[in-house]
């Protein structure tokens, strides 16, 4: 199986194959998407968020404030409009 080049093998009839999907793309969707129902054995929504955060802490080294990527590095230095 090829990974991560976005082209499923020709024999693959599944339009939504899971083999080549990056776990992080999946977790983005499974931990923050989907219908949230109050099941019978529940972590409340807030708890799920806590899980998300501690999980992020596990796999990321989370910074205190996750700064927007633009704001810190793309400083408003503009020298002309060619570009």
């Amino acid at each position, binding site marked *: 199986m090829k990974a991560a080049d976005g082209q499923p093998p020709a024999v693959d009839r599944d339009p939504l194959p899971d083999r080549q999907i990056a776990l992080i793309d*999946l977790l983005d969707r499974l931990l923050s998407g989907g219908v949230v129902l109050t099941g019978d054995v529940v972590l409340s929504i807030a708890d*799920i968020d806590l899980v998300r955060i501690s999980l992020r802490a596990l796999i990321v080294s989370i910074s205190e404030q996750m700064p927007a990527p633009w704001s810190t590095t793309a400083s408003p230095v503009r020298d002309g409009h060619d570009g």
Partner: protein
Amino acid sequence: MTETISYAYAVARDDDGTLDRALSGLPGVADASVHLVRAGHRGELVVAVSPVPEQDFQESALRAHLEDLDWLESVARAHHRVIGALAERTTVLPLRLATVYLDDERVRQMLDARQEAFAGRLSDLTAHTEWGVKIYVEAPAATDRPAAPPAAPELSPGRAYLSHRRAQRHAREDAYRDAEEIARRVEDAARHHAVDRVQHRPQQGELARGPGENVINDAYLVPVGHAERFRADVLRAAEGLSGVRVEVTGPWAPYSFATPPETEPTRRAAP
């Protein structure tokens, strides 16, 4: 003698009663086989469910398991596998990972109580798929390879170093500026085709796959008939500027759009 409870994957519409077949032989979470719980006048509204060991999904156990990346991955992949099989045949409303009920009867009650809302959202999502659009800045970070000044004989080593650092910094600033430009173009291109957008947090950390730094991590809801052009136009919008990479993932089942827009204040619908 393991007690089991019911893990619910997704709500779907089974108009012609063939959805069972899509699930036959498909291993769900904990390798259990997946079945459908029905509601609606003709049983056309279903929830895909499978039994899972109760001890793994009790609150404290679940909390601990969710911190275990291997456990989480196996559940996430199984969850996605089931949703993928359903999405191949019908419109699905994925449920949040680890939605669990005491038994199938409780799932049926939940489905009965929410039939209308589910049916409404399912018809909104019919013939739409989700696409992910990620933008990466590929320029080297300022901290990468701090030394390695180019041989410039007229400069002292100190000044050569500084000049090298300045060049690096400028390259990086340029790359961010280009990324903003690309983000604008991509958004314009996407908006022609998409009916909704959700912005996920940029990916960081061990699981984030480079190269480069992820700065945009969006999901778009796109009518099936527009999918090809959406993909092509988004990728074309990224051409021409080096140091910035755009990655399109999908089609996904509409995970990021399972909940209607008005309940999610953070997202902005594309006009």
